[in-house]
């Protein structure tokens, strides 16, 4: 596995000198790395290190001030968020952004948006509004897929409940189900274990491995909980004040003096 991971040809996402400035603040400063296919890639760093900004750059919510992002050999930094999502990069949000007024089922069905039959949009609109069989069949498929995902996340008993009424942990799970509904190549998880107890964190880490294998995903995750990241990730990148200060396998990163200094401070 690790041999395959390190082979250069297997890169799915590559950042080259990625920089993002907000006025005078350089949130992400000349960051370069490459993520391998099927890898679980951890992103850690103190608060304000630029982790979420980096996620926003990868999903094109923000344009980079300079630098390039290359996804499967294609430059993506000039695309719009929905285009990147359609190409197979899906994400969750640090501060959970579900469609609160909608049911869990509808949330996941919206995640299936890009997987509609390949017919002209006008034809799709008209056939849908007139309840033609072709549209009903498609809706049924969408619903079926969404229900499967909800069942996998253990949320199948409350599919019609509003997302905003779900407890915090279940909202996180629902958001992952919605992100998986896109059938992405790369799944970005922004602090998936936030607010979970140690037992739940352990389960989550098992679960992330499981979905990686089951859906053949590449996973990039931001996480503060160091033991979880160390146990789960194939490689870890450490950001501090926008700069990449270390990158490598967990055992190497853990003993890196720069990382220790960033986390513990310089005496």
């Amino acid at each position, binding site marked *: 596995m690790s041999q395959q991971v390190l082979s250069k040809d297997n890169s799915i996402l590559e950042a080259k000198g990625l920089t993002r400035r907000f006025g005078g603040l350089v949130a992400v400063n000349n960051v370069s790395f490459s993520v391998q296919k099927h890898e679980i890639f951890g992103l850690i760093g103190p608060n304000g290190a630029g982790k979420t900004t980096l996620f926003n750059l990868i*999903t094109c*919510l923000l344009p980079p001030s300079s630098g390039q992002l290359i996804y499967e050999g294609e430059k993506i930094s000039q695309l*719009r*968020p*929905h285009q990147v*999502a*359609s190409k197979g990069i*899906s*994400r969750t*949000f640090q501060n959970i*952004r*579900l*469609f*609160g*007024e*909608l049911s869990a089922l*509808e949330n996941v*069905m*919206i*995640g299936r*948006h*890009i997987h*509609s039959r390949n017919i002209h949009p006008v034809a*799709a*609109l008209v056939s*849908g*509004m*007139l*309840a033609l069989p072709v*549209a009903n069949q*498609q*809706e049924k498929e*969408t619903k079926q897929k969404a229900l499967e995902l909800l069942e996998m996340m253990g949320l199948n008993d409350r599919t019609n409940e509003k997302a905003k009424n779900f407890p915090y942990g279940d909202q996180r799970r629902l958001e992952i189900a*919605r992100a998986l509904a*896109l059938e992405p190549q790369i799944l970005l998880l922004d602090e998936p274990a936030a607010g979970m107890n140690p037992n739940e964190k352990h389960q989550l880490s098992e679960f992330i491995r499981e979905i990686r294998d089951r859906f053949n995903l590449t996973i990039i995750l931001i996480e503060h909980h160091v033991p979880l990241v160390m146990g789960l990730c194939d490689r870890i990148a450490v950001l501090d004040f926008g700069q990449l200060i270390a990158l490598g396998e967990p055992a190497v990163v853990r003993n890196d003096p720069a990382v220790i200094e960033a986390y513990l401070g310089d005496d």
Partner: protein
Amino acid sequence: MAEFLNTYGPLIVSMVLGALLGLSLYLPLMTGQLSLASPGFYALGGYIAAILSTQVFPTNEGSFPIPLLLLEMLIAAIVSGILGVLVGIPALRLRGIYLALATIAFVEILRVLSLNLEITGGAVGIFGIPQPFASPIEYLWVALPLLLISMFLLYRLEIIRFGRAFVAIREDELAAGAMGINPTYYKVLAFTLGSILAGVAGALSAHFLNTWNARQGTFDASIIYLTSVLIGGSRTFVGPVLGGMVFTALPEILRAVAETPGLPIWLAQLLRDGRLIVFGVLIVLGTIFFPQGLVTPDLLKKIKRQEQ
């Protein structure tokens, strides 16, 4: 019965047209976009019908042929749809109050144009629009099916992929984008569908009102239909339909109440002439106490459950 229909026929048809206009405002609101452009397209549709029926189509004796009326409505739909896309693409780059302002400006531009163009009859407008029906109540033969079809299409729209995309944008545009939904595309689509509906309603209204001028579809009308959507409910198509009907009838009801003997003069006058004040107050109170309107999806679910 006949007397009732003669007295209230015009009001009933107006209520159906009000419901259609409520729906036309509701469509962009499904994507969370507060557009007040509907009255502009309503006015446009009316002028299309008025000009076609008085100047283009042969005006022979007897009643105006209904197929021609339907043809006018179709033409109004197409023109409004095209203009909807053209206006929608730049306007929907704006958000919130800025979009509302831009659409108010659009309505004003159309109003000033119609006041000054020869083809629209200037300030006088267009008179003697031919009648396809013998009495006002008979307009229901066209208006009611139009409303029922629109309601069915909107009911369907809400439960298919397109409606979900609309609502996803309303709930969280950024997250919708992350789901692969192109926000601009769906906002323009919703706006255009609303424009088409308003244009069709306008074409029918021109015949119904017999005369069409620059006072149709003004900012005042925007406020009335905005009230009907915001109070009626902006989360399900049932809200604007009921709201549109109630708020079209409300001025008449207030006028009747104003006739009650013993009312202070100022109150009677407010009830008679102050409908815009009343509507304004309702918008403020409604948005504070019923941010989703009175008819909400939850309420409909509750009613359904009780029926079972």
